[in-house]
């Protein structure tokens, strides 16, 4: 089935060949980020959209934390969608926008310890973490932050300190994050300092 997010507006070609660059690039990024066409992001309200666009604008080229009281998943999906809309053009099937589900990522890393090296999937995730123009980090509310979990996130954030890259951590109230130890204090301190309103 050919599903294109621009179908109702499109007039780019004389006939849809189901493989134009617009369809290929947007579908690739949506699929990579698990955004199905029945996702709520496609009927976001104007104020939700405005908020996400403003967060993205205020975070360009830096590392920011967005605190969300309601659903961190819904916000990270919408941020991801808005970032895809901003960066799909000319992406040439590179994963320019990636929503990293941090809890799942940690699970995959820990699983790789008991196998012979990283799986291909984990290899790709690591590539996207380092190269995505916009990286959204979500699902940190499901993590118990011990030293390893803190260190992994801190070093990931450090590796993203590049003015060409944007990194947004979607977090519940920082005081509600679960964890302990000196690195946890450093992590929560960093997340609080980078907060975008």
């Amino acid at each position: 089935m050919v599903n294109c997010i621009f179908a109702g507006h499109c007039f780019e070609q004389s006939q849809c060949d189901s493989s134009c660059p617009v369809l290929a690039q947007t579908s690739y990024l949506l699929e990579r980020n698990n955004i199905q066409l029945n996702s709520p992001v496609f009927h976001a309200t104007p104020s939700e959209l405005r908020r996400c666009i403003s967060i993205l604008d205020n975070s360009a080229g830096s590392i920011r934390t967005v605190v969300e009281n309601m659903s961190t998943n819904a916000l990270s999906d919408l941020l991801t969608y808005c970032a895809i809309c901003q960066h799909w053009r000319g992406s040439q099937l590179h994963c320019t926008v990636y929503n990293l589900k941090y809890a799942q990522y940690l699970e995959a890393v820990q699983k790789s310890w008991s196998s012979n090296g990283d799986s291909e999937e984990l290899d790709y995730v690591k590539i996207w973490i380092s190269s995505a123009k916009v990286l959204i980090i979500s699902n940190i509310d499901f993590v118990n932050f011990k030293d390893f979990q803190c260190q992994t996130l801190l070093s990931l954030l450090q590796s993203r300190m590049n003015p060409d890259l944007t990194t947004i951590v979607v977090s519940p109230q920082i005081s509600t994050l679960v964890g302990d130890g000196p690195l946890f204090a450093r992590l929560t301190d960093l997340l609080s300092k980078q907060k975008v309103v």
Partner: protein
Amino acid sequence: MSLMYSSTNRIKFTDISERYAVPKQYKAKLTEVHGSLILYVVNHFHNTRSYKQKVVNALNVLTYCIMFNETPPFNWKTDNPIDTIPPEFDLEAIQEALSDYWLGIESIEWDVSPTSDTAKSAPNRVESSRVTQPRPARASTTARTAALVQRGVMSFTPKEDLYIQAPKYPLFDFSKPWLSMQDLQGEKFVIYTTLPEIPTRQNEISATTDMSKMTDAELMNLFPNHMIQTRAAAMYEPCPGIEYDDDLGCIIPIEGFTADQVRENIIKYPHFYKLKRWNEDVLSSFYHDIEIDGELMSVSAVWDSLVESKVIPKQSDFIKEYVVRRYLLERDAGVQHRYEMYGTLDPFLTLFMPPEQYVARGFNDVLSISKQCVQSRISFKQSRNPVLKRLNIHG
């Protein structure tokens, strides 16, 4: 460094949003932020050098932020765009970065009057007479400003709202397929109803829009709240030998039609975008060829033989304008072309000025104009939609 605007080549303050010549890629965003600032200044203007300096600094900082991908000041607010610019910006560095695009107080013609409150409160700080006497803001801006303030809306309509292209963040209702069909090879295509179902901006109108659901107020809401330049930038520079309209730009001569007819045609068709036509089974750019007496000829081959070419500059924007404008004038006068445009192009596809300005130009029934805009856009998109074409459905 040669400044684009200087004391000998000034730009009107109220024109900065529209006419400030910056690279195309920044134009839309700059129009929006400068628009907010102009709107604010019109309502809070002090005719003092220090106030003007603050305004100019804010303009330059915002231009710099947009052009150099910097985040606008975090606390910057459109409802107080001057005082929310933090003082720590290094204006010298910004001047160096902006180079020709830097604006100084002297490079602006301050066509704004002090508001009654500010005029009373600062009688001793009025500038000396060497500064140009401020003129009232353009009627279109002040009238609109009053309406905006009344309605609590604080920014100008951004140019993007008028685009024919899809909105940057397309939205649709997955539960409402507008069309779901298989082609002859069994491949299934779906077009979902776009959202918002009731368009609030012209660029939200799609092939799936149902105009019958729109109220008169919703239709009227599609007009922009200020005049927006929609033609190619070159059309808004006066050109020797070509009639010039302050709002519409160059009224190029077209043999067989009066300047008034051309002017009316510009109002009905203020914007051309990716027009094409069939030429021997190949879809080609509309601007490449011109049909003369039923024959399709390459524009570059016949340009010099056209009477109008003596006056119209041989530049791509002017040539495009001539080719399409002539075609539309002929078509609307009843000429049947052999090589027709691909898809429809009906009048008022783009509403580019507030309703009162249409009325001022003799188009009194503004409601029917807004209806025509919706119909034209639906038709434009349906008649070119690649999915409908693939499924052999003609909009």
